[in-house]
């Protein structure tokens, strides 16, 4: 199959990425449902991920001042990242009792915590652009980098619509969440989900997780949490739905997530076709000019 054929398949597949990638009778697609309404910000996921996957510390020991977050974001050496967002917003009935009476008569305060991770997109641009096959689709429908194949070209880095995949500078290769591919093969839960004490990170079959998430968001809305929403759950979105999706309590931008991500390779076939038409036209023009000049 030509690279172009791979590309087209990835973009038009029916949302069963393992099947679309050529696996015969793959196991059900696996993923994460991260319910941020349950996150307590303990960062056990960050530590468990690094311990299991032997991801080094980021080296920086800087105080970032981002509330309790000193990680900052996902990167080559951070595959789970817990964001802390301090807001002056109603807390849906709970009493924070943090009254700054001279500035904010309403006094409502809330603290959002959210564990971010690679989205394991249905249409994964990182995988589309990888020239070496280091990035591949697993039988579980997840997207994994093979470190021993990656040549460090870095094409995948700008291709990711979420800014997840990243190059380890001192190493040259790219790294990201594998959804603990080695643990999945043994029938184990990913390290972050195993370590999560509140079930904020839930691992399982994607279809079942989507049902669970739909019920959870309906429950939250029914109890007055009007801002509760799912992010990356919709198979019709710009990346064909995320294998790792989220329940958020505010706009995605509040959490540093793009509001409407689109697989960056979506327009490539059209662009190639346009380029081909332009090329043919150009060649025709040159030929015409040559023949004309020959006269």
């Amino acid at each position, binding site marked *: 199959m030509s690279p172009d054929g791979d590309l087209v398949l990835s973009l038009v597949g029916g949302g069963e990425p393992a099947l679309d990638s050529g696996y015969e009778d793959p196991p059900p697609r696996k993923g994460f449902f991260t319910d941020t309404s349950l996150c307590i910000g*303990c960062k056990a996921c960050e530590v468990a991920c690094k311990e299991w996957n032997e991801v080094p510390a980021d080296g920086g020991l800087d105080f970032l*001042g981002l509330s309790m977050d*000193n990680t900052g974001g996902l990167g080559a050496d951070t595959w789970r990242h817990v964001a802390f967002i301090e807001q002056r917003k109603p807390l849906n009935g709970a009493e924070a009792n943090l009254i*700054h009476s001279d*500035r904010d008569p309403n006094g409502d305060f809330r603290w959002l915590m959210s564990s971010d991770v690679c989205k394991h997109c249905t249409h994964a641009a990182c995988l589309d652009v990888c020239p070496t096959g280091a990035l591949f689709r697993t039988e579980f429908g997840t997207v994994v980098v093979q470190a021993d194949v990656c040549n460090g070209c870095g094409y995948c880095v700008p291709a990711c619509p979420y800014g997840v995949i990243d190059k380890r500078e001192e190493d040259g290769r790219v790294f990201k969440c594998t959804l603990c591919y080695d643990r999945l093969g043994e029938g184990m839960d990913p390290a972050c989900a195993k370590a999560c004490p509140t079930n904020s990170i839930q691992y399982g079959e994607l279809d079942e997780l989507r049902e669970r998430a739909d019920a959870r968001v309906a429950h939250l809305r029914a109890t007055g949490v009007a801002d509760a929403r799912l992010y990356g759950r919709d198979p019709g979105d710009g990346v064909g739905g995320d294998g790792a999706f989220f329940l958020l309590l505010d706009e995605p931008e509040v959490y540093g997530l793009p509001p409407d991500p689109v697989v960056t390779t979506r327009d490539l076939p059209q662009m190639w076709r346009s380029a081909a038409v332009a090329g043919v036209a150009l060649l025709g023009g040159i030929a015409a000019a040559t023949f004309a000049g020959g006269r």
Partner: protein
Amino acid sequence: MPAYMVSLLKAWWGDAATAENDFCFDYLPRLLGTHGTYDTVMAQLEGTCKGYFLMGENPAVGSANNRLQRMGMANLDWLVVRDFSLIESATWWKDGPEIETAEMRTEDIETEVFFFPAAAHIEKDGTFTNTQRMLQWHFEAQRPEGDARSDLWFMYHLGRRIRERLADSTDERDRPVLDLTWDYPTAGPLAEPSAEAVLQEINGFGPDGAHLSSYSQLADDGSTSCGAWIYCGVYADGVNQAARRKPRTEQNWTGGEWGWAWPSNRRVLYNRASADPEGRPWSERKALVWWDGDAGRWVGHDTPDFDLDKAPDYRPPEGARGPGATAGDQPFIMQADGLGWLYAPAGTTDGPLPTHYEPQDSPVDNALYGQKRNPARTTYDHPGNRYHPSGSEPGANVFPYVLTTYRLTEHFTSGGMSRWAPHLSELQPESFCEVSPELAAERGLEHRGWATLVTARGVVEARVMVTDRMTPLNVAGRRIHQIGMPYHWGPNGLATGDSLNELLSIALDPNAHIQEDKALSIDIRPGRRPRGAGRPALVRAYQQRAGIGADTGTAP
């Protein structure tokens, strides 16, 4: 002498403990007063405490008034530190704050400091005991690296060497050491003592040499031995019950066959109260134990915490004493009346009813009483432990803010187990303090900038976090700003910073002698703290401005 005590003495001194010599009761050292950690520091400063073992403790960061802790250690003949890393309590004599300020010079310090690297929990056999009283055995997964050794190795071989040195002694005072049962088997290239042998000694043995299964078997005639009555049964039937790992899917919901809980593997104390007066579970779903009338005994999912054959309708006869005086419907068997108590009417220095006193160092007077501070608290008179004027006392306004202290999930206590771990250090890398936007504006503090915090004990610097989570308090008609600060950092390790406990005084609660470290008055200013001699000079300047002397804040 009660059976528990005799059995303990038999466990420690074996054949040497006989009825004729009171089972060696007089071998036990006597309490000479309070021997708490802060009293020990004072004894070090007075020169009466000459030697100190620190095993998994880091008072140069973790205890109130760090400077006084270091001054006490600097007055010792010897100090032994056993820890994973070179914690601050092991290196203060060469790089501590007092060396930097020239208050101490290394060549003047006569304390001989020994550092012994400690093995981690995965490098040794042993138990974890959690707050549910459950013991879980863990096995050595790998041998300790380098010179690291388990605590058990250290204590056993230290005792063995001391006994060898004393072997020919005829001095009576050496008998308690020489008569000890100190015969644990060792194995492997490190001669690691058997932790299971220690657990068996703690469990205890009967007259026939068999493992005891319950503390009810303990006798006062010297025929039984038991190192701790509450642990009796942890090695019942010669099996390490703490090492049991039956999955929850193969046993009832109380999980009684996972590990072992003291005493008697009871998972819930006073579980008789889970059944009604007639002995029927209040809730079938939450049932723990119940009275089986046909069998005439208490049965259930959990081990009954009640005399097994005492029927619910048992009523004690006139003049009954001890357990026999507890009726069949009185579950709280450790209380004289068999009933649950909302408070302890006797036995506490302060109480029984709660009341409100202001902290030792407070910006306000007590709104409830003329009595400002708890009159029963313990204070210590030392030039390094001066207190603040409070409320309406002159000079209190020199420390106009309130400091409250807390911990983070990312670090463990004084940091010996976390500040050297890269994956934890990067999550909370630097000492910081939290202030409201209002206080930041009042004192010119910048988010992510530096602040200097001052009390009459010390001065530290920390990074600033300006956050709406910190709110001014409205107290006594005044607006009082509070500062929040976690305490885990010190100058050593990967994640470093000044130690918050430099700021704290030693003032103890009357009952448990816990240091008062959750609320105190303080001043904060922008920028980094002075270096060198300027650091103690700033503290002295604050003391003078506030008119602080030996009597400040010490009235009952």
